[in-house]
Every structure is written in C-alpha cells, then in structure tokens.
C-alpha cells in the first residue's frame, strides 16, 4: 500500500527541506546540516529505487548510497574545517556577516 511514489515524495520533501535549511539559516554549521539532509534524501531515493526495482538482486542502489554516505562524511569534515578557519579569522560563522570580497 505504500507505493514507490509516496517514498519519492517523502525524499523530495526531505531534499527541499534540506535546501530550505541552507537558504534560511545563517549559521554555517546548520547550513552544513542542511546539505547533509539533501544528500540523505538522495540516498533515500537510491535505496527506494533499489527496493522497488525490477531486479532486487542487483545491489547498485545500495552500493551507491553506501559510497555517498562516505563521501558526505568527508564533505562534512572539510566543511567543518573551513568553518573553523573562517571563525578564527572573522570570529563569526554567519556567512551574512563576512566581509564580501571587493575589488
């Protein structure tokens, strides 16, 4: 009774929620969480397509999701390192308060 469509709607909503977090919050760390939510939504898609797929014997979707979790973790690490660096220089993690590059 739960169709694939419903799962996809949930993942789409999750993706847009992640985007909304990125666009609405002015704390770089929370924005980072938003990005992770977006990536998680994509993973949910992969798993859903795998589960509802024609040939569940193939593990493609799961493997893709697995790797993207790892990549997302690395991305989070780099992001946090950059945020810390910016914090050290500007004493803020609000991107809106960073001096914008001028020329």
């Amino acid at each position, binding site marked *: 009774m739960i169709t694939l469509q419903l799962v996809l709607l949930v993942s789409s909503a999750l993706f847009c929620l992640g*985007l909304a977090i*990125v*666009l609405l919050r*002015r704390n770089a760390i929370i924005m980072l969480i938003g990005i992770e939510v977006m990536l998680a939504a994509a993973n949910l898609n992969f798993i859903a397509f795998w589960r509802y797929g024609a040939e569940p014997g193939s593990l493609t979707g799961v493997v893709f999701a697995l790797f993207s979790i790892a990549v997302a973790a690395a991305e989070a690490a780099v992001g946090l390192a950059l945020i810390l660096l910016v914090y050290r220089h500007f004493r803020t993690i609000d*991107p*809106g308060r*960073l001096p*914008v*590059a*001028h020329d």
Partner: protein
Amino acid sequence: MTETATLFLALALIPLPPLAAAAVLLFMPGRLRRPAGAIAVVAQALALFASGTVLVRVVAGGDGFREVLNFTWFQLGAETVVPLGLLVDATNAPVLLMVSLVGLLVFIYSIAYMGGDPRAVRFFCFLSFFSAAMLGLLVANSLLLLFICWELVGLASYLLIGFWFQKPAAARAARKAFIVTRIGDLGLFLGMIWLYREAGTLLFYDGGAGVLETAVLGGLAAGAAGGMTAATAIALLLFIGAAGKSGQVPFHVWLPDAMEGPTPVSALIHAATMVAAGVFLVARAYPLFEASATALSVVAWVGAATALLGACIAVAQREIKRILAYSTVSQLGFMMLSLGVGGPVAALFHLLAHAFFKALLFLGAGSVSHGCGEEKDVLRMGGLGRRMPLTFACYGIGMMALAGFPFFFSGFWSKEAILHAAQAWPVSPGPFWIALAATFLTAFYMSRQMLLVFFGRARSEAAAQAHESPRLMTAPLVILAALSVLPLVVATPAWPWFEALVRGGEAQWALSRLLAPEVWPLLAGSILLVGAGVGLAWWIYHPGRREAAGRDPLEDRLGAGHRVLAEELYWDRTYDFTVVRACRWSGRLAAALDRWIWGGAVALAAALARLFSALADRLDRRGLNHGFDLGCAGLRAGGIGLHRAHRGQLHFLLTTLGVGAVGLLLLLAWL
C-alpha cells in the same frame, strides 16, 4: 615548370614578401629606421612585380580567364576535408596590381613622412603586415581564407590608426574602427557559417562544386526559409560584413575618425585599399548576390544612401582629411550602388580609379598640412597654390578626377559608367537620381576645398609661411597623378577594354558609341552637373572675397542647415539622447533592482536589462557618430550594475542557484 605552376608561384609570391618583411621588422631593433623602410619597400616591390606578372598572364589568357589552385588545409577522417585555395581571375588581378602599386608608393612616401618617428620600424612592420593581409584577402579562393585575412586587415588597421596611441583621440578611433567593423564582421562570420552549412564547402570555385558555381547557387536560391531564400539571407549577411569594412551608412561612423592615424595610413587603408575590401567582397561573391534580387536591391539602396549622405556631410566639414574621409564614404557608396544595380564592372573600375586619385588626395593633404605646420583646418589655409606648386598641381588633378571633370580623368569615365548602370536599373529610378545629386555635391565640395586651400590669400600665419614638401613625398604624388589620368583609356564607352577583360569578349574601338543616343544625353547631363557644382563653389568661395579667417561663407547662406551638416546631421546628439540614455537608465535599473529587490530575479532582470541595452546600443549605432564612445561608457556602467548583483552574500548566491534549478525544471515542465 608549367605555365599554371609559374602563375601560382607568382600568386603565392604576392602576399609572402610583405609578410616576411613584417616578421623580420617585428624583431628589428628600433634604431634601424632606414633599413626598416628599405626592407618594407623592397618586399612591396617584389609583390608589385609578382602582381604585374599575374596581370599580364590574365590579360593574355583572355576570355573569362580563371585559374584556381585548391589545396587541403587538413583532413579529418575519411570525408571531412578542409580545403583552402588561391584564385586568379580578371576580378582580382587588376586590384592586386592596384593594391601593391599604391602600397609601394605609400611606403616610399612614408619613409619621408615617418622618418623622424622613434617607432618608425614598428610602423613599417605594421604597414607590411597590413599589405600582406590585404593581398592575401585578394588572392583567396576560399571564404574562410578570405575571412582570416579580412580579420587580419582589421587588426592591422587597428594597430595603424592607433599608432600614435599617446593621442587619446587616436586610441579611441582605433578601438572604434576595430569594434564597429567587427560588428560587421559578425554578419560576415554568420553568413560564412550558414553558407558552410548549406554548401558544405567554402571554396569559391572548385570545378563545379564551389559556392559561386551553378550547382550550389541553384540549391541556395531554391529553398524558402522564413520568407526569403537562403541565398538572400546569406548574401545579406555577407553584405553586413562588406558594409562594415567599406563604411556604408549603418557602419560608416568609424571611417572619419580613423583619420587620426598617420596620413600614409589614411591614404593606404582608408582611401585606397582596406575600405575597398568590402566592395571587393561583394564583387567576388557577385554570383551569390545575383541569385537574390532582394539582396541586390538592398546593396543598391544602401549604396545610394551612403553616396548622398557622405557627400552632404563633406560639404560642411572644415578639416582637410575629414572632408576627404566623407568623400571616401560617398564614393564607396557609389561603388556599392553600382554593384547593386548590376554594374560590377563599373564598380570595379571605379574602385581602381578611386584608389589612385584618393590616395593622391590624401598624400596631397598630408603634404599640405606638412607644408603649413600641421594645420588641418581648410578655413585657415589659402593661397597655397603659389607656395606649393607641385602639390597644387597634383592635388588639382586628383580633385578633378574625383569631381568628375570631363574626358581626361579616369574618375569621369568610371562615374559615367556607374550612372549609366543606375539609369538602366529596372527596379527603381531612385538610386539614379540620388547618384546625380551626389555627383553635383561632389563637384561642389571638392571645388570648395580647392578654392579654400590653394587660392585666395593666406588666412593664417602658418599658411603664409608654407613651403613645398621634400622630394620623397612629392614623387609619389606625381606618379599617382599620372595614374589618375592614364587608366581612362581602358574603360571609355568608345573602347570598353576593361569590361571585356572582366566580362569576357573582345573590345572594339568605336568612337561613334560616345554619340549613341543612350550615352550622350547622360554624358552631357553629368558634365552640366559638374559644371554647376564648380560654378556654385566659385560663386561662394571665389578668391577675391574678403572674409574673416576661420569663417565659412556657406554658414551664412545655409543658416541652420549648415550647422546640421557641420554637426554630421546631429547623429551624436540623437545618439546621446536615445542610446546612451537607455544604457544609463538600464544600468541604473539594474543597480536599483539589486538594491531593492532581493532574490535571483535581480540577476535575471539585470541581465535582461543589459541585453536590451546592448541590443539598443547595436541598433541605434547605425548612422550615429562618435556617441559610440559614450555608448561604450553606458555599456560599462550597465556592466557595473550587473556586477554588483553578483557581489552579494552567500545566501544570495545559493538562492540564485536554487532559483536557477527551479527555473530549469519549470522550463522542462513548460515544454
């Protein structure tokens, strides 16, 4: 070696010596001015010799002579071959001779004129480079090769106009010339690509498969695309390029400004050769134009408008070179007009004749201002006839050739042929009457210039102490004067040798044709018109009159009309009111949007505003003079507004990304 091989060796030798000279001069130390000039002159002389050989061969070849040498530039896979080619026929052989001859004379003149300039070596390098590109353009048998040389000619012109870049006006004029002609080149480029799409080749002649041969032309003229045939569209696009280079009305604005360059440059590039490249392109691609009556009509009307407007504006100019520049615009209009009404031979002959006498006039003008201390205003000269007799005599011959004095000048007969062709045009009598008016005005403004410069009393200190120029400068004048007279024999209705050469057939000598009923009334009429023009000029500017220095008697007689003409028809002012305003306002709009409305709409709206202003800029530039520079400033201001939109905060950037994504998806949904 076979005869054909020798011919192509000679053909290849035409652009190569100047190119080699340019390469050598590029690396030559700046103090070796004399050797530099010598190298350039020798290279040019070689090119002239080769051109002469080629012309002799063409003349000997007779009827419809055409030799083509195509070679593969490179090949991709089995079927895609990119060929280039060389071509010699009666269309380009005389022009080749003219370009290398005028080039040689100008080079010699330059040794004297530019001898003292610290960057003379660079100057000769650029001149040789220009000459090589121009000659390459003429011998090309491929629109691609022609276009490459075409662009190089533009680059050389940019470098030469801006040669005295310390003068801000020169730098501006150079940029303006480069960019305005390049806008024309866009049309040519687009036409070339389109032609390539239709024909699959860009060779002019290729044993039946070239773009100017019947097989391809038939295909081009057949298909209807959006109300016109492909031939019409392509021909019009090519004509945009030709109009840009040859200073036809929408694009003529760069030509008068280009006079900021050194005088030899004006003579070589902006009188004799480069500006003729557009006319030559149309003549070269004439079969393509003939395939489309619409395109030919456009050419005719644009040419007529240019001829008249150029002549009108020239009437009220005061700067000696500027008068000549507008006269060049006007004469180029005559050539285009002739092409449009179906007289390509007359156009070609006028091109050749004009090249000699206009180069003569420009060099003469250079000699005049050289003689009276770089004075340029004709109203502050006067009485130079006595102090510079040789220049006066040569200039007089050039002036009479340009004005169309009867019988003994090449200009008379070439103009006669053009008028004749225009009269015979079945589509409309308009261009013919316009051409007659322009003929009258030409005689008037040239007489005005003569009277003001060489007759009467000196109206300034400098003019009173004028002296004749050095031998090296006057010698080319004499030769050019001779050349302005001599070619008359080959293209009179009595002995249409030139027409026979280009069109094929045998020229018969028959003096009686001059008195044929379809010839003599026009002949007589145009002589009357020229006489009227000269008489009017004499009436207004006769040497005995006493006016304050620096005042043009025409001003009093024409009143407000004179001001309109002197201000070059107020095109600047109009331009300022329309385009520049539009640019500035759209820039402000972009900035305001940036400030007040948040979101991705900003970038979009700013981009649209910029797009429109850029379009407006392009559109309204037609017919508008140095407001162009203001236009560029407006464009820049708009660009700044757009740039501000991008300097937003991270959230703005990310939202724009989101808006872009949504936009893409909505576009998908909409489709």
